[in-house]
């Protein structure tokens, strides 16, 4: 019995190695939360620098930056980066980077659309959703070539 089991494990290892040999895309992402830090130089000139931050006060703006890269050996296609707007924050209109095709959801990510087409019915009237009502944001990037990298970003304000 013991001998048979070993054979099975070996066989599986062979299969895995064979798979790895095929060309495949491998997209990795990471996300950073940054805030604008204004520094005043000795000569009085102010400069704004984005810094990684862990703590935000209500009313402050969180700059979310999503970095992606394709470390695979093949292009990735139809890449969809989706991100829920965190609870307790409000999306800042116009802050989403115009990378690929940006769209928003007001129903928790079930459906996405351009802002002007995000409508809902209220008392028989069709209303366009306001940015406070956005629940999710999504970028669709048609192709991430092998070895390529990029980023998308958006901003929210802490309520």
């Amino acid at each position: 019995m013991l001998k048979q089991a070993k054979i099975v494990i070996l066989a599986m290892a062979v299969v895995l190695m064979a798979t790895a040999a095929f060309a495949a895309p491998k997209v990795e992402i990471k996300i950073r939360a940054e805030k604008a830090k204004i520094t005043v130089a000795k000569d009085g000139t102010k400069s704004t620098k984005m810094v990684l931050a862990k703590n935000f006060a209500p009313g402050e703006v969180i700059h979310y930056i999503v970095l992606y890269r394709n470390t695979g050996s093949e292009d990735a296609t139809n890449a969809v980066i989706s991100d829920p707007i965190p609870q307790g924050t409000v999306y800042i209109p116009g802050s989403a980077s115009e990378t690929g095709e940006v769209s928003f959801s007001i129903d928790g990510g079930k459906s996405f659309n351009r802002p002007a087409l995000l409508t809902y019915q209220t008392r028989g009237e069709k209303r366009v959703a306001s940015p406070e009502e956005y629940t999710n944001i999504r970028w669709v990037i048609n192709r991430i070539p092998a070895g390529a990298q990029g980023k998308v970003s958006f901003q929210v304000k802490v309520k």
Partner: protein
Amino acid sequence: MQHTFSIRSTGRAAAGVLALGALLAVSQPQEAAASTTANTKLLNVVTVSYKDASNNNTFSANASTQVTVNLVKAGLNAIAAPTGPTGPWGLSCLPAVNTPSGGTITTLYAMVANANGSDTYNFGLSAASGTNTNGALATNVTSHFQFLKYDGTADGAQDAGTHTFASGIGVGLATGTSDTLLFPGGSLDSNTFAPNKIVVVTYLDGKKQAFLVSGVSGGSAATITGNNTGGAYSNLASTAGETQGQLKLAALPTTAIDGLNVGANAAPDFDTHAVDFSVPVAELALVQVSVTASVAQTNTDATVNFTLAGSTQGPTPVTATVACTDGTWVAPQLTISKLVRNVSKSGSFVGNLGTASADPNDTLEYQVTVTNTGGDANKVAVTDAVPAYTTLVAGSTYGTSAATPTGSSIFAQVTKNGGTAINIDMGTSAVESANVAAGDATSTAAKSPINFYLGTSASTSAGGTVKAGETFVIIYQVKVN
């Protein structure tokens, strides 16, 4: 802040609207009030899904980052103790009251937290005499403040320099309950939201109501393993679910504290009366200020001004103050009148400036009235003397007819506020009544001194306290020689 967009139906209009929205976002002032509770963990999990070149195989990866919401310090809202069940209650001083010199005036205030999380405040009370139109000052001013629990018992030490106010911003109502509010996991400070604290809930219609904390659990924020630094790429971040904090509230029982009415016995009905989750559910702390003072001058009242201040800690404190005049210490103001009548001739009483005619052996009755129209007066003594050419009558039948001496040693009667007459004996007497009077007359002979010591705790040698509004009437009779 509500953005309203009009739309013109084309894709280009949409871009224009977005640009307009961005301008609006820049130009609007930062809102002062926080709507997210301190220590909330804002978790952002981003996902990428993609396909390979064949468009057949789907892959995905995710990453996350978590940031913490800061405490925004805010000044306390100091209010007069609520007298009605619904707020908002405005900042105000309580009506000033009068008290006798040496007395204590207590006033009850409520302070409501305003920050987006629990915070500790510094407290201080100062009190100083006000100056009235006569330039009179209060003396011996002492002042204290004491935090009180809902039942009127002390909460912490007297004049406590700090008090931690519970506060937090809820995110919803626990399913199936009408009394339990939910908070972001880990944000609720279960130490400050202790059972039996009074907290104020604001409804969507702006009304406020006070409740008692009956149970609290802090919950826990989502925990993340894997990529949470924003630094290196890694393939997977996993998150364990958040447990929301819970704050269970109950009706505030009928309180033992005078003048406090914050909707006693109204049970939470948050399922029908919707709560405003953009403002804090905040502690209402009761603070009792007590000021004691005396009046330095007779017949001149004095006031005391005090300031109770609660300040946030840190480099730029925000201070809320109640600066009020804590009532008036009324100076004692005694009036005295002396009337006489000839009881042998059934004459009526005449005042100081009138005259009563009398023949030898007629009996005259004197009536001395002492009234306090001001504040409490201490050590009130009336010194009189047997009139010249007369003899004090001991054992009179006072008030009605000529004296028929009985041989007893009673030489006068004192009544307080029209009550039972107290007999005053000859000699250096004992206290006739500890709460009314003592008196002595050493001789019945003309010009002999007659002394009366009036008021509560009168002794055989000194007067007691004649309280505001009290009237003492002394009657004695003499026979014309």
